């Protein structure tokens, strides 16, 4: 960390990848940790020549639990395994900024991450968006309660089969229906917090991030939630989302693709990346994450997924959006991060070359809140 704070500076003549698909050749003005202007021929006192450089919004991981593992003790602070239904919990209280920083996300250009409960709880708790380096959790937090984490995977069964269930997908479906249809909440703190979260989910104010590995799990989840048309669904892991295209489009759901390299998941699920790229190009919003079924993996994996999607994707900006503007929009933080746009946090990465097109593109600098946190 160089800790270099820029009160005001202008990055000149860069290729600016805005994040929403647009690319702009020009200048970007940074002031007090914020982007204040994007334009041509901006002038000011401190100029920094960026000719030939590509600048992207800092990348965002769309949902994993790195930083919440209490690794020294393998305590797994990301799953509250006393009950499968704990929507009242907030992952923020499990997040250790030191453990998050240890992942060195910023060395892969990742400046923010959506921190989520694990895949073992049916309704595990709410998610938070944080910056990827820092010592003080208050200072790295962008927003809390950005989504409710759900899981329709076998992980729920694995953990709860000997703890009173659910032991089957049908029992999981029953529990979810019950949690969604409940209207009578007592006045105690737990009930009221549950109501707050579930009301937000039912009305679409808070999206639900639903871990579904297979196409069956995705289809089941859509069926159980079909009486709540306002509900915003983001399916994650989603290794077989290519086979659920019709339902995903009909439900207007988004997809946060999990890591498929680890544990031979791509082999097991036969993930069709070409089809996923087609879905993205025809309007389904995608994000990417290093999350796997039973573990979250390393920072490298985001670009590995990007490369697999690039096999057939004709426009690399579609993939850039998955790493930037899409997750910001999906998790309701686009007023803070995800694009190169006036008013947003000065979170950006400077590359020589385009990392979504060439493996040899070199990350030169990662900047969070206008501060250089990594320099090659």
């Amino acid at each position, binding site marked *: 960390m160089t800790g270099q704070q820029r009160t005001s500076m202008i990055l000149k003549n860069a290729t600016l990848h805005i994040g929403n698909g647009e690319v702009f050749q020009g200048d970007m003005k940074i002031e007090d940790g914020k982007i204040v202007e994007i334009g041509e021929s901006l002038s000011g006192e401190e100029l920094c020549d960026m000719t030939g450089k590509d600048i992207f919004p800092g990348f965002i991981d769309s949902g994993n639990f790195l930083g919440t593992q209490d690794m020294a003790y393998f305590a797994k602070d990301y799953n509250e395994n006393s009950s499968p239904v704990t929507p009242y919990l907030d992952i923020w209280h499990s997040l250790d900024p030191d453990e998050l920083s240890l992942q060195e996300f910023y060395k892969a250009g990742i400046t923010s991450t959506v921190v989520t409960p694990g895949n073992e709880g049916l309704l595990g708790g709410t998610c938070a968006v944080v910056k990827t380096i820092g010592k003080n959790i208050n200072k790295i937090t962008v927003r809390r309660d950005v989504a409710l984490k759900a899981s329709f995977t076998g992980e729920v069964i694995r953990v709860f089969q000997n703890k009173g269930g659910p032991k089957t997908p049908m029992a999981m479906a029953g529990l979810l229906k019950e949690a969604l249809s409940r209207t009578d909440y007592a006045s105690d703190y737990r009930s009221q917090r549950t109501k707050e979260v579930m009301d937000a989910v039912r009305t679409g104010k808070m999206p639900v991030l639903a871990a579904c590995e297979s196409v069956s799990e995705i289809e089941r989840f859509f069926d159980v939630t079909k009486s709540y048309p306002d509900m915003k669904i983001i399916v994650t892991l989603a290794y077989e989302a290519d086979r659920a295209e019709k339902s995903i489009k009909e439900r207007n759901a988004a997809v946060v693709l999990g890591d498929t390299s*680890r544990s031979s*998941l791509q082999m097991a699920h036969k993930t069709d990346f070409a089809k996923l790229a087609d879905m993205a190009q025809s309007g389904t919003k995608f994000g990417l994450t290093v999350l796997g079924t039973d573990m979250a993996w390393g920072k490298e994996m985001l670009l590995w997924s990007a490369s697999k999607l690039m*096999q057939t994707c004709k426009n*690399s900006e579609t993939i850039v959006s998955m790493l930037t503007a899409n997750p910001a929009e999906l998790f309701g933080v686009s007023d803070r991060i995800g694009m190169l746009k006036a008013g947003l946090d000065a979170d950006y990465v400077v590359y020589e070359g385009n990392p979504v*097109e*060439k493996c040899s593109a070199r990350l030169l600098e990662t900047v969070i809140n206008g501060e250089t946190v990594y320099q090659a």
Partner: protein
Amino acid sequence: MLLLKNATIYPQTEEEPFIGDVLCEGGKIKQIGKGIEEEGAEVLDLTGLNLLPGLVDSHSHAGLGPAGDMGGIAYSTDASHPVKPEMEAIYSADPKSPVYRYALENGITTLGVIPGSMDIIDGTGFATRTWGDNIFEMCLKRGMCLKLSLGENPKGIFQTQGMEPDSRMGVTFILEEYFANAKAYMEAKERGEEVAYNEQYEVAIPVFKREIPARIHCTHNDMASAIQCLTKYNLWFTIEHAWGAGNYLDEIAESGCGIVFGPIGGRRSFFESRFVDVDAVAKLDALGTECCLTVDAPLEGLDALLSHMEQAVREGTDPLRVMKMVTIHPAKVMGLQDRIGTVEAGKDANFAVFKGVPGTDMGAHVVYTIGEGDIKYQKN
């Protein structure tokens, strides 16, 4: 006969990439050149595509599981006794495992299949083709290496079974003790002394004679222990996984050992995976150390071998050098450099044909895999 036309050939010899043709006959490369014509040969037009030797991952546990198992890992390591050199990984292999078919889908024509790392003296590995029904016929080389392990994995599991070791120092001591005893056994035999046959020590003899490599699982400071133990006997050896190699560049280069780096992409933890310095691959390559990449299948899928090439390049490895790390270098580790690993006349006609340049272009992917002159996989 199969005639591959107009491919951009990356031969992995001293020769630069060039556009040309390759004629295959009897499972071998018969001729390489420009404008080759051959009557009766099946012609495959590879215009605009990139041809590499079939890819090789020399460190995998692929197929070492019960029938029906997806990747195979359950039967890769015995964890019953810290000294098990007599175990041969081939006896745990299931040739019907889908992982071999999956290897072909990812351009991989040869795998080094080795025992896992729960024992300390883990047993011997074998090199195999990635197609076939009978593992003993698929196999290219048995007794390809002696696999050893230091560090986290063998630590502790024996203590619960009433055996040593229970610490890193205990693990390393057992390694030292095995080689010291095996050396004494070999020398006594060479002197013509009457010694009782010992199969465990017999396994070490080709290792002492540098006929096969010792391949040792180690990371970080365990690497220093490994180098010290194995250079003492002037062994041919490779460091497997090699996370943290960047802190031991001089020792590694001086020892003359090879590096099989990977898997990359784990979360950072406080233990062996605390520091996975992919840039060490570029540094060691520059120092003349022969580097290979591995995904440690099925820990990571064999699809990730391409991702590993990409990541090595992303962290400083030359995009042409990285190709050697998944072809000729692992071929050398397995002692098969005369048979596979380059595009040269007389070698097995194994090829991975890519759309895009692997390790350079994001989205590069395999469109054909050719094994001994037959198209084994074709992307539809």
